């Protein structure tokens, strides 16, 4: 393990970094709209709509396998997320939003693990910001519409059943938490998970390739390390599968929770 060629940074290997997320335009040299990530977003939308539409279309009372699968997936969001968070009375209105959100993020995240595609669009911060900003506008608009501007501010910032002397401390905290921090954590959680996952996969894949092919040094040790690197890459791939599903679920669940909080009568 004291071998110099491994311990010292090898000048030939360039570790992957944020630069690898700067995608080229498909047709032109500059990075504007037609990047791989943008095309993946469109592909995800097409896949989500095709799956849900084709399974929903038959409307058979006794479903076929495909219809059953679609129904289960739809009902998971409808009942498991929307109804459980928002409650029987109001949830139906927000089912389309939450269903779209869950499956759109899920398919996009899973692109990171599909050969040839191998990139999660939400590892680009701008896309995550877009969705989180939209959620921020939606839940605040719902709250203002339901309670009026002042009523909504009071609902979000003044917790009920708290002694008056602590309010000067709590109101700024609640304001920060509900209006400023929520969209940041919502977007960064999704972005950072996808970003880090993709970076890890890149690292193990490029590192393994480098160790096996390009590195110079004691052959047996390098090849073993290279193989281990690929094995780790596969393991991280499975981990990423869980993360992809979990992040789609968490993002959608939090959106439902925020909407529910805006609809609530009491904080």
């Amino acid at each position, binding site marked *: 393990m004291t071998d110099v060629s491994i311990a010292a940074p090898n000048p030939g290997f360039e570790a992957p*970094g*944020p*630069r690898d*997320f*700067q995608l080229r335009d498909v047709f032109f040299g*500059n*990075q*504007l*709209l037609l990047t791989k*990530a*943008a095309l993946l*977003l*469109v592909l995800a*939308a097409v896949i*989500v*709509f095709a799956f*849900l*539409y084709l399974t*929903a*279309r038959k*409307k*058979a*009372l006794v*479903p076929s396998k495909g*219809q059953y699968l*679609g*129904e289960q997936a*739809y*009902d998971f969001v*409808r009942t498991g997320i929307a109804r459980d968070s928002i409650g029987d009375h109001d949830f*139906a209105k927000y*089912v*389309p*939003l939450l*269903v*779209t*959100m869950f499956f*759109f993020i899920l398919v996009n995240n899973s692109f990171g693990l599909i050969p040839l595609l191998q990139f999660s*669009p939400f590892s*680009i*911060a*701008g*896309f995550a*910001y*877009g*969705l989180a*900003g*939209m959620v921020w506008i939606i839940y605040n608009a719902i709250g203002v519409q339901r309670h009026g501007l002042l009523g909504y501010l009071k609902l979000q910032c003044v917790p009920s059943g708290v002694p008056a002397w602590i309010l000067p401390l709590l109101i700024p905290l609640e304001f920060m938490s509900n209006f400023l921090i929520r969209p940041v954590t919502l977007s960064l959680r999704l972005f950072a998970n996808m*970003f880090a996952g993709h970076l890890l996969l890149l690292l193990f894949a490029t590192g393994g390739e480098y160790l096996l092919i390009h590195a110079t040094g004691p052959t047996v040790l390098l090849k073993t390390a290279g193989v281990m690197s690929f094995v780790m890459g596969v393991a991280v791939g499975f981990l990423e599968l869980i993360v992809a599903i979990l992040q789609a679920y968490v993002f959608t669940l939090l959106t439902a929770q925020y909407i529910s909080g805006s609809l609530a009568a009491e904080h």
Partner: protein
Amino acid sequence: MASFIFAAGDEEPNPLVPHLSEIILVLVIFGILFFLIRKFVVPQFEATFAARRDAIEGGIARAEQAQAEAAAALANYQAQLADARGEAGQIREEARAEAQRIVEDLRTQAQTESARIIARGEEQLAVQRSQVVRELRGEIGTLAVELAEKIVDQTLSDDVRVRATVDEFLADLQARDAAAGAGA
């Protein structure tokens, strides 16, 4: 932002800084998908769920209705059965009462008849007895006179004293007879 667009080589871009185009792009794509799902997917799934719920609840309702009908029929049948039983009991009671009444009637009739027969028999006996007594009373004088004539060898039949003696004898006889009757 523009400085990151062509970032490459040594300069590491900041991954947290977005492009405005990315935000717009994701919102447009999400929006289109949202409207498609809201218009074409959610109503169809909800319709399927509602139809399925109706089918199940309708089946349950139909089963409940059938059950209620069966229960009503059973209750009806049991009521009829109870009625029939009651009627049969009533008829039996009536028959028994009728039979008893007939037996009573017959008994009364028989008793009346027997009493009547006994009364008539007693009446006839009394008549016959008084007739016998009367006949005997007529003959006994004659017989006694004939007997006495034979004994004393004289004719006393038209003698007034003799008649008085006979009457006295007869009265005495009657008195003895009555005493004997009382004694018996």
